[in-house]
């Protein structure tokens, strides 16, 4: 399982990377905003995307929309991990096709639950 972690703060990328490794996902790559993430995703091979919302360049919500609009990437599971917690934003992300939404600060347990749930659905739904 190859995972791309997108966040403009290296600290947060590092925390997520460490948490994912603890959960048994050690094949991760990092990008600092949507603009750098998109070409990496398009190069292929990723099974999962974890992205922040508020980033310079291209924001997470626009990255999500770009992923869903791309024929190759449309089915990629996307988990948002963000400090954005306005209702309209969560609804916007849901409508854009996000698979999970975690608000910061979060715990390792929350991350595990959301990832488990996403893959249950992805595997179950085919």
């Amino acid at each position, binding site marked *: 399982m190859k995972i791309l972690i997108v966040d403009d703060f290296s*600290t947060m990328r590092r*925390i997520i990377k460490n948490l994912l490794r603890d959960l048994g996902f050690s094949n991760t790559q990092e990008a600092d905003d949507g603009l750098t993430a998109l070409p990496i995703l398009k190069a292929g091979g990723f099974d999962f995307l974890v992205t922040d919302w508020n980033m310079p360049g291209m924001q997470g919500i626009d990255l999500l929309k770009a992923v869903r609009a791309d024929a190759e990437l449309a089915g990629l599971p996307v988990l948002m991990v963000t400090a954005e917690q306005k209702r309209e934003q969560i609804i916007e992300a849901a409508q854009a096709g996000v698979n999970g939404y975690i608000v910061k600060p979060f715990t390792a347990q929350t991350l595990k639950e959301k990832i488990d749930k996403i893959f249950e659905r992805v595997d179950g739904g085919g």
Partner: protein
Amino acid sequence: MSTETIAVNAGVSEDTLAHAEALVREMRAGNETQVTNLLNLINTAREEGIYHEVGKMTRQLHDSLNSFTQETRLDELTEDEIPDARARLRHVITLTQKSADRSLGAVEKTLPKCDQLSERITKLGSSWQDFKRREMSVDQFRALSVELEAFFTDAEQDTVDIRDGLNEIMMAQDFQDLTGQIISRVIELVEEVEGNLVELVRITGTKFSGAEEKDTGKDKKPDIEAAGPAIPGVGKSDLVSGQDEVDDLLSSLGF
């Protein structure tokens, strides 16, 4: 219209009145040179009055702005303190980044030691059970004895290392004190600037009619703006209070 009524009218001086009466006389007499002179005199007097008023108002504005900048340290604020505040806030980013790196570095160094310790304990424990059940040859017991001795030595060092790692994480939190102070000072500065802006608006007598919709000036405004992290005590409506509410909201949307 009697001369009396005119004299009572505000702002008309005795001189101007005399000039006006003379003007009528000279016009009737058809004395053009005198008429021109008198008109000039009347105009000059009138202009002088306006200049005097404008001058008075300019002086007043100048004085109030002067005392405003002196009382409010506006120069200091714009020249020194606001650039300072920017630098201080950047410093907060640096401090917190350093602290996070330091803590995460210590965690990454310490966790494998815990894992190794735990593995060796499991292995030794199982050998010990074998010994207790007398399922161990003399040679095996000798090996266990050597292994145990090595474990005691290593475990001592490992626990010291783990302790150092935890201490390192603890010490990395020292940024909080510093960043707290820095941010408090920036908050004070922001309050002072806010007070000054209110005062400036009062002095210039400007009234803002209802706030117009902001134009961010960007070519393409995103459909939905990022609001940033929720700050306790800063009023923002329509926020969820935590992960549980996010989950409820998403499940209400069929997630």
